[in-house]
């Protein structure tokens, strides 16, 4: 159970959201929706432990995550707006580095072969990173999801620059992860085809909005 209570976030002296609460059980999915600037990325960074919330706290199975931030960070995937790909390394080397850096031994699954296969990049394994298109870079970034186990996936607009085939592949990956008891929190624009996903509308937590599910004046 991953939960957050009374979260608020301040960026550059501006309050982005406040009194935000969420709860996610194993196998669950939470979709973050809201207009640009409503704090979807900030909330994901708070959840990843990259950004300290102004108030409130996060907990995992009832235990406060502030007590063990490093373990939490090491047990999640955060896919942000940038694709960490080195132009001078090949596609396989890029992915293999992250595998080894996260301490995944080659015997666990088939390593980077499986990751590249899952996102349809196996034929480009020996291609240097600098020749990848935006969509291919995105897919290489997402390949980490397929071959490095983590209990929580935090995805910031994962569908950006993906074609229809890759979107289907990603949704299948997300389905497998959920079936294995993993959790997913993703910021999205528009609908994505995930059954029984909960939705968190961040515009409801913008400062000054009083129409909250629990809030009085």
């Amino acid at each position, binding site marked *: 159970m991953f939960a957050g209570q009374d979260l608020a976030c301040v960026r550059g002296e501006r309050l982005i959201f406040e009194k935000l609460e969420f709860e996610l059980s194993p196998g669950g999915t939470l979709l973050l929706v809201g207009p640009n600037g409503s704090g979807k990325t900030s909330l994901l960074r708070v959840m*990843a*432990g*990259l*950004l*300290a919330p102004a108030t409130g706290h996060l907990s995992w199975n009832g235990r406060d995550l502030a007590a063990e931030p*490093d*373990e939490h*960070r*090491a047990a*999640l995937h*955060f896919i*942000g*707006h*940038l*694709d*960490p*790909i*080195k132009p*001078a*390394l090949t596609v396989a*080397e890029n992915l293999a*580095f*992250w595998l*080894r*850096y*996260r*301490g995944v031994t080659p015997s666990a699954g088939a390593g980077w072969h499986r990751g590249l296969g899952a996102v349809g990049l196996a034929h480009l394994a020996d291609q240097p990173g600098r020749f990848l298109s935006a969509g291919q870079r995105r897919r290489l970034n997402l390949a980490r999801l397929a071959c490095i186990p983590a209990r929580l996936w935090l995805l910031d607009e994962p569908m950006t620059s993906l074609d229809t085939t890759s979107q289907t592949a990603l949704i299948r990956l997300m389905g497998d992860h959920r079936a294995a008891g993993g959790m997913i929190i993703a910021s999205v624009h528009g609908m994505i085809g995930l059954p029984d996903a909960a939705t968190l509308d961040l515009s409801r937590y913008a400062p000054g909005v009083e129409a909250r599910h629990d809030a009085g004046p």
Partner: protein
Amino acid sequence: MMPALELIRRDLRLAWRQGTDVAMVIAFFVLTVVLFPFGVGPEPNILARIGPGILWVTALLAAMLSLDRLFQADHDDGSLEQLVLSSPALPAMVLAKCLAHWLTTGLPLAVVAPILAILLNLGADGFVVLVGSLLLGTPVLSLLGAVGAALTLGARRAGVLVALLVLPLTIPVLIFGVGAIDAALADLSSRPHFLLLGALLAAALPLCPWAAAAALRQALE
């Protein structure tokens, strides 16, 4: 410890594939040292007298030149975020980056320095001490530089800012590095200078990665 080794391997491989970064540092070192005889005149005695200082100051500037690439490239493509997220101990990650930086900057400088010492008519007694003092002193430069590079991450004109921040802190390294060579040339013991350089390294080794790690967390907020 394994993730740190993987990071060093990756950084060395990147440095090898993009050889220009290392070549540029060495070229800067060689060119700047070669300029001095033109500036102060080709008088062998004067060059021999100021040779140790020239070599050390130039090595220092060459090392500064490469500091902005320590974290900047990883920051720009999002790798740094992932490195911070997946590092169980962030100071160990910083230490690995420093070691990779030293292997691609300090070590090549120490290798090239004796050749330039011949150009400057440095006494033969000073050669071993020159290389030794650079081998002991340049890791401190990489470590101090990491703190500066982490603090200026994302700043405008970060390269210049790092130099302004870090250069004053490197004065002790410079003093004892040059002191060791001067002592050897004057037939005195270089041992005290080496001990002090070692002490600086021993202090920087635990403190700098820790400080840089804190600065990196701040930079990523």
